[in-house]
């Protein structure tokens, strides 16, 4: 293993390179917390169609993302390091993976009241038991990886 060497040569100034992502993460953690999307109660309210809050958040996030992606594509904007921005389309295939995996994810989303980002924000909010849920999610991902050749996609 030449970990240190590789990291040193392949990624100069690793800390400086990663800092923007740390800041974006901190920003996210604050927005997730302040908008209550990390609340089990809000997720229940959403799945019971009893308030607009979550739909408004997801909907307006999608609209802002959509407009920005169109602008990036139209004006061929480049990343800060000058590289091309590549937005690969998702392969539909038979589509099985999307509805089957999606439904499975949805079950977990409602049972835990959290999805992958909010789980981590909850840990920061002091709900440390979410570390167990995160660990279970890692085990779930690992199990998928092992069973992958046998699953329909």
């Amino acid at each position: 293993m030449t970990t240190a060497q590789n990291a040193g040569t392949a990624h100069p100034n690793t800390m400086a390179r990663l800092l923007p992502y740390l800041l974006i993460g901190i920003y996210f953690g604050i927005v997730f917390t302040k908008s209550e999307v990390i609340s089990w109660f809000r997720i229940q309210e959403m799945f019971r169609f009893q308030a607009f809050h979550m739909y408004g958040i997801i909907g307006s996030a999608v609209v802002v993302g959509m407009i920005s992606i169109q602008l990036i594509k139209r004006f061929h904007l480049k990343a800060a390091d000058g590289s091309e921005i590549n937005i690969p389309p998702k392969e539909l295939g038979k589509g099985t993976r999307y509805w089957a995996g999606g439904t499975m994810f949805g079950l977990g989303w409602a049972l835990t009241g959290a999805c992958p980002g909010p789980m981590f924000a909850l840990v920061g909010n002091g709900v440390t038991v979410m570390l167990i849920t995160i660990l279970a999610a890692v085990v779930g991902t690992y199990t998928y990886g092992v069973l992958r050749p046998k699953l329909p996609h």
Partner: protein
Amino acid sequence: MIEFISQPWPWYVAGPLIGIVVPLLFLVGGKQFGLSENLRHVCAMLPGKTDFFNYDWRNGSWNLVLMLGIVIGGFIGATWLGNPDPVAISEATRSDLALLGVTNFNGLLPADIYSWEGLGTLRGLILLVGGGFLIGFGTRWAGGCTSGHAISGLADLQLPSLIAVIGFFAGGLIATFLLLPIIL
């Protein structure tokens, strides 16, 4: 200003603040927003891995660092910008949940169930461990989670993402209306 910050933020503030991260990640480093990838990167750190995890997880270090930031941001939000009041969910949700036996509406989630104490019960194990497993398995099978499909996928008008999001809701509705009444 301070008062506004310490109150819960309305959807029309929070939604755009989340959505703007999609282009921000593209512009900062050509990265696509998708948080569940991190679960895969953790698996790729483990020894003796199958093909699916046989790649250099360091390529995902930006995303892992972002996740670390989310933990820190959650701490900042809770500690300095916190809102002491219970989450202001609708009266209808409150009474539906009360019928399921949820009595404590303080904090972000029912603390008697979603806590270390709750984890010691069969109910807690199913919700916290079973739910987590389904999230991890399902998100990778579907190729993304709320961020990758519902936000950045739909924003890029991807049909597969729309199918996945319909799946998210199908699963969520089954869990909410069929499973939770039995489990809670």
